């Protein structure tokens, strides 16, 4: 029996876990997938929104502004990539100018600092690839970009280091009330806890509705993206948004913390919570919308496209708090954009809520910092020389596109909550995330995984479950009388 069971190891669930780890309590995070950061947290815009967008007075606005203020310091404490590149909202027509001004006012009312209205000339001087017919715009100096995997993994590792338990590969299937709290049924056995925190992303509505008569509607809304090569990373410096206006909501064009360029997302209702497929129409829409704000977009440099689901709550508000008719069941639902930016504040808010309910006391020895995976490329020549001399695995480049060494991959696998699959390695150290998309390094990373996990090559997966990379060995399908043999 745990004091607290958090459902979901995405950025919200792990932010909550990390904050709760400050208190004397037994905590478990239960996750349906094989790793942290497998749902919406892995496929989004990777933006730290300044906080001008959400409705003034909403929980969303408050947590966004608070979260974005916490991230720079957290990035230092927990060692994840973050950059304060600033964002620009572009107004593309005279008619939309009033909307730009009201966005500016809303931002100020939300408590966002560093907002500045810009003329067309000022914008073009800042960002020469913006379309020349831009009318005006707004800069948000506090806007930033973050590695969503890095932040999620950092929260999780720091929580684990402070005693939080993680159970992967267990999808929640139902709930039973007990005298002390909840019995949570999973497809991998039941778990009991006094408090349940529902941070299940796109599944949060479904889980809430299992315990509550006050139904929530969380509707998956898909967003599709293009990711471009490093060669296109300098196309824009700021995160470029289009002011929502007569042509609807646009897409954003932004550099990433790793020097790529990211373009998207569109928004499209989908039938299932698993519809993370891209579509020709969706990607075409992203292209067209991007070309509404920038010119000469180098789409020849696209290295991959992907889709993520937004956990859209019909009132477009974060639903955070105890379900009215299910005591001890705390929802953290409807966490769509700006959910990533808000995550630290969500973590704090939910943790305080649980603390007050269980009357938790501060735990001595909470370790607030965590060291990320060493990035040799960030070292000086001499430092790197010393590193390789000390550990030769850092001298062996495995992923040539991103320059990732065996040392980094081993670290990604060996650390607490380490990678168990190719995608797990990719999210932690970017091996396979470059322009060849794993063409060269996939067999090598598979070998390292097999050897480190002590499994045969055939059991190495892309992302857990049934995602095995290999079907077998050569000629193993040649049984007697199998029909093979006739040409």
């Amino acid at each position, binding site marked *: 029996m745990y004091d607290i069971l958090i459902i979901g190891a995405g950025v919200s669930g792990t932010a909550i876990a990390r904050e709760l780890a400050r208190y004397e309590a037994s905590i478990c995070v239960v996750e349906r997938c094989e790793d942290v950061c497998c749902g919406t947290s892995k496929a989004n815009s990777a933006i730290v929104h300044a906080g001008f967008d959400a409705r003034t007075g909403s929980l969303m606005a408050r947590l966004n502004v608070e979260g974005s203020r916490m991230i720079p310091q957290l990035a230092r404490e927990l060692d994840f990539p973050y950059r304060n590149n600033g964002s620009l909202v572009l107004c593309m027509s005279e008619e939309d100018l009033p909307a730009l001004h009201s966005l500016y006012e809303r931002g100020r009312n939300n408590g966002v600092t560093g907002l500045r209205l810009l003329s067309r000339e000022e914008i073009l001087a800042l960002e020469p690839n913006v379309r020349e017919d831009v009318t005006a715009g707004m800069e948000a100096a506090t806007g930033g970009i973050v590695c969503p995997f890095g932040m999620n993994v950092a929260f999780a590792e720091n929580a684990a280091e402070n005693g939080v338990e993680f159970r992967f590969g267990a999808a929640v299937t139902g709930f039973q009330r007990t005298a002390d709290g909840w019995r949570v049924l999973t497809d991998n056995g039941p778990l009991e806890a006094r408090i349940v925190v529902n941070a299940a992303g796109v599944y949060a509505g479904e889980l809430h509705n299992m315990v509550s008569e006050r139904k929530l509607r969380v509707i998956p809304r898909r967003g599709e993206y293009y990711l471009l090569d490093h060669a296109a990373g300098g196309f824009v410096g700021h995160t470029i948004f289009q002011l929502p206006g007569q042509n609807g909501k646009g897409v954003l064009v932004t550099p990433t913390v790793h020097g790529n360029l990211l373009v998207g997302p569109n928004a499209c209702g989908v039938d299932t919570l698993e519809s993370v497929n891209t579509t020709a129409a969706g990607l075409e829409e992203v292209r067209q919308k991007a070309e509404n704000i920038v010119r000469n977009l180098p789409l020849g440099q696209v290295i991959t496209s992907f889709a993520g689901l937004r956990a859209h709550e019909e009132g477009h508000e974060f639903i955070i708090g105890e379900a009215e008719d299910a005591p001890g069941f705390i929802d953290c639902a409807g966490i769509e954009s700006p959910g990533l930016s808000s995550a630290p504040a969500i973590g704090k808010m939910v943790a305080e809520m649980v603390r007050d309910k269980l009357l938790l006391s501060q735990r001595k020895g909470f370790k607030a910092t965590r060291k990320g995976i060493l990035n040799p490329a960030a070292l000086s020549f001499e430092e790197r020389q010393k590193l390789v001399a000390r550990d030769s695995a850092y001298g062996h480049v495995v992923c040539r596109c991103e320059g990732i060494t065996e040392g980094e991959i081993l670290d990604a696998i060996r650390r607490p909550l380490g990678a168990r699959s190719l995608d797990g390695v990719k999210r932690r150290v970017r091996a396979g995330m470059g322009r*060849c998309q794993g063409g060269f390094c996939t067999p090598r990373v598979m070998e390292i995984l097999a050897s480190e996990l002590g499994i045969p090559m055939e059991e190495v997966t892309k992302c857990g479950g049934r995602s095995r*990379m290999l079907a077998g060995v050569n000629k193993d399908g040649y049984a007697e009388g199998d029909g093979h043999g006739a040409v």
Partner: protein
Amino acid sequence: MERCDLVITGGGPAGLAAAVSAWEAGVRDIVVLERDQELGGILNQCIHSGFGLHTFQEELTGPEYAGRYVEKVRRLGIPCLLDTMVLELSPEKVVTAMSRERGLFQIQAGAVILAMGCRERARGALRIPGFRPAGIYSAGTAQRLVNMEGFLPGREVVVLGSGDIGLIMARRMTLEGAKVHVVAELLPYSGGLKRNIVQCLDDFGIPLKLSHTVIDIQGRERVEGVTLAEVDANLRPIPGTEEHYRCDTLLLSCGLIPENELSRAAGVALHPTTAGPLVDESLETNLPGVFACGNVLHVHDLVDFVSEEAAAAGRSAARFLSGGGARGHRTIPLRAGKGVRYTVPAAVDPVRMDEEIVVRFRVAGVYQDVSVVASCGGEPLVRKKRMIVSPGEMEEVRLKRADLLAQPDAEEITVALEMKA
């Protein structure tokens, strides 16, 4: 810092042939830097036969062809550093490299030959929509798994792209026990050799669908199927032509891209069509003393031509190192004319060029009964008849030094196809 006369980045067929020819031209201080654990490059995984007909007048497998050059390099005692990744090349020819054994180190090179080869175009660059499950492999990655590690990536296979690697992998997967359902090709013709279409597909009853592409990939964890559709003249899928294939694997063989990240970062100017360095008749880039050859320069069809080109790069580097062959006062640009996509080299210096040089190029479509014409100021210098040319096969035309010296006012040389009216 260590110094070395000639640093060759890459120990595949290009790097090895360049090393041998530079040695034969008198260079004694050479080092080959190879990122893999053995020499030979991608040839090691190309276990099919068909290599070496031009060079050795016999039909060899990839490992055997590579073996011939590895043996030469060994016999000459040319040092090769394996498991060594070149991280950076500076315009001043300082090469930064790293390996387990030697750690991080720098070499000041007198000359550099770029021979890094190419990579495959990945699913992302093809922008195929759908899910992103396990089971989508570039043909070359599958080739490595099957031919070098002995693993079967899947049992029910669809191949997109009818380049030679795709065709050859269709056969290899079949022979190792997989069922290859279909090979789809976006274009109305295959970029692969006729021989491969017959011996890799027809022999095993594998259908080739021209003007078809994959428009959807199904399966969240592992590939469960793909949807093929016919495309129109603008290569857009035609609604109503969709066909579904159940499969667990999609192999992609959709083109190769020269790997020039190192070159680009060093300031080497690249050709917009080939994505390889812009070189002159000596295969020298815009950085003096930096040469390029093989698939990093432009994607070749036959390794025999890679060896030939690399040997020329080795000789040029040797001449550079001996202080000869400074660029003359004049270079004539080569222009790709009608029906020609690009030429390598992109310029010639008539003063320092050899008596005769080979200009290699690819054509833009399949044309029958054409003449390849290299002309200067409207005057043809060379004309040769070709019964058929196709984009899948590299073409060449030879230019003579004497002819160019006879044209002191030449502003450019055009290589073009003349079609029959």
